């Protein structure tokens, strides 16, 4: 346990010194300010939005779910940025710089070393994601008097998505250089987002092929599926035309959702970590 805390603390201190946190905190502050501004003006002018009289649209729910969906996207993005910069060079990068070898020869074990770095990064990212998500919820509630029907589960799913990215980044760090790993993880993240949007378009167009491709992508990259499931949960109370309009937008929610994808995401995380540990145990340093 001492070794785990020592290694996790080592990684944490490294991140502090490299100003990773400073960059993320500044970006987060900018985002939260802009998010508050958007909420303030949207909810302030909500009364001026007049949908046609023959349709019923719950504008407050629509605006609230849309804005919080936007906040969830930004939180996921910033969480992924933090996750990648905390972990992209854990193995190859540190080995190239000669930082890793003195640690690996200690009687700690490579698996413990890698899993400690995972736990350290995961702890930081979970706290970060939940904090930003919580503040975003608070802003929407304070400015628009709207809260989603599910509050806790979407935040946990967002954090879960970021934790999966951490595992993928650690796995990448075993086999790729830092730069290549950073590019690869961000491209995977982008691919997941595109696949999610594609699914939304596929359902709007009722295209079986696009829906099928999106479904495969959701299972292949479950961090995206968790995020989409979180979006689904915050717009769960929107019914009728309001719900339909939300589903047409980019924050409409998942078409692959519920416990099967959550269980798969947990299994995916374990598999990614096991492969990373196995690859690290066989890697020459």
């Amino acid at each position: 346990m001492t070794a785990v805390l020592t290694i996790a603390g080592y990684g944490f201190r490294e991140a502090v010194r490299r100003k990773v946190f400073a960059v993320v905190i500044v970006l987060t502050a900018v985002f939260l300010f802009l998010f508050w501004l958007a909420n303030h003006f949207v909810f302030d002018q909500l009364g001026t939005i007049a949908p046609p009289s023959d349709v019923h649209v719950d504008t407050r729910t629509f605006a609230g779910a849309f804005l919080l969906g936007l906040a969830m996207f930004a939180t996921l993005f910033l969480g992924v940025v933090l996750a990648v910069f905390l972990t992209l060079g854990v193995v190859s990068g540190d080995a190239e710089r000669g930082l890793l070898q003195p640690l690996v020869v200690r009687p700690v074990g490579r698996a413990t070393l890698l899993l400690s770095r995972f736990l350290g990064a995961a702890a930081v990212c979970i706290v970060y994601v939940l904090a930003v998500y919580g503040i975003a919820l608070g802003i929407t509630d304070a400015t628009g008097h709207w809260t989603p029907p599910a509050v806790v589960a979407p935040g946990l799913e967002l954090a879960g998505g970021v934790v999966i990215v951490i595992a993928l980044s650690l796995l990448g760090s075993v086999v790729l250089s830092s730069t290549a790993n950073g590019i690869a993880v961000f491209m995977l993240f982008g691919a997941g987002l595109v696949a999610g949007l594609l699914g939304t378009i596929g359902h709007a167009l009722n295209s079986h092929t696009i829906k099928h491709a999106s479904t495969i992508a959701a299972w292949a990259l479950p961090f995206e599926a968790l995020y989409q499931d979180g979006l689904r949960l915050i717009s769960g109370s929107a019914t009728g035309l309001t719900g339909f309009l939300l589903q047409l937008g980019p924050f409409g929610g998942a078409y692959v959702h519920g416990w099967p994808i959550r269980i798969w995401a947990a299994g995916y995380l374990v598999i990614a970590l096991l492969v990373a540990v196995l690859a690290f145990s066989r890697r020459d340093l």
Partner: protein
Amino acid sequence: MPQALAVRGLEKRYGAVQALKGVDLAVEEGELVGLLGPNGAGKSTLVKIAAGLVRPTRGRAEIAGSPAGSPAARACLGYLAELFRFPGWYSADEVLALHQRLARSDGGAAERKRLLELVALADATDRRVDGMSKGMQQRLGVAQALVGNPPVLLLDEPTSALDPVGRRTVRLLLEELRERGVSVLLNSHLLSEIELVCDRVAILLGGEVVAAGSPGELSQPRGIELETDEGVREIPGASREDAPRLVAEAVAAGRKVYGVRVLTSTLEETYLEAVGGETS
């Protein structure tokens, strides 16, 4: 009692390059063994395999009877890598404290103070690594390797960045370690250093041990040097046993003899002969 380091039939291949071709080497308890060889001879690969950083393609490496890289082997190992770095924002004391925790050493502040004194860094306890010269960082690396009093030390070029005073500090430290019964495998390009401190030397070339033995065993007789009133004269092929006869002959011939010296090849000459002047 198992050997401190036992290497048998060790082979390592990196793609098309055969870095080690069946190396056998042993370091006995309390023995200081030097590893010599030109760049690319496989010295660092051998040390890395012993440290558990690199997996051998074939053969075995054991530290104190346990397979290299196993928890038991790592528990009794101190290692200084050829290319290493400590986080720049750590102080010397913090680097040692980190390694104490990882090595499960209960030496505390007293051990850290003693180690920093050993490598002449007592005045740099709170200095950050970023603010240290390369030589200071290398000495800190040596101190780090000694955390927890490991019975086996693997030192890969521990003096490459040191000035003559720093080299002397490390040399004295190695001699002290030998007196304390610590086994050391020392990989160095500095032949004079190896010759001064090592009990045995192994010369690697192209991934194979081409010569091994004590510095004395590796030195070859080169003749006798006789200094008389006619000047200095070398008698090639003459041995130590020939010295009294040669002196007697010179005196009988009316020469004044001022000195006689048995000539042996230096480790450098033996090394150059073994590697054939090869470098890369």
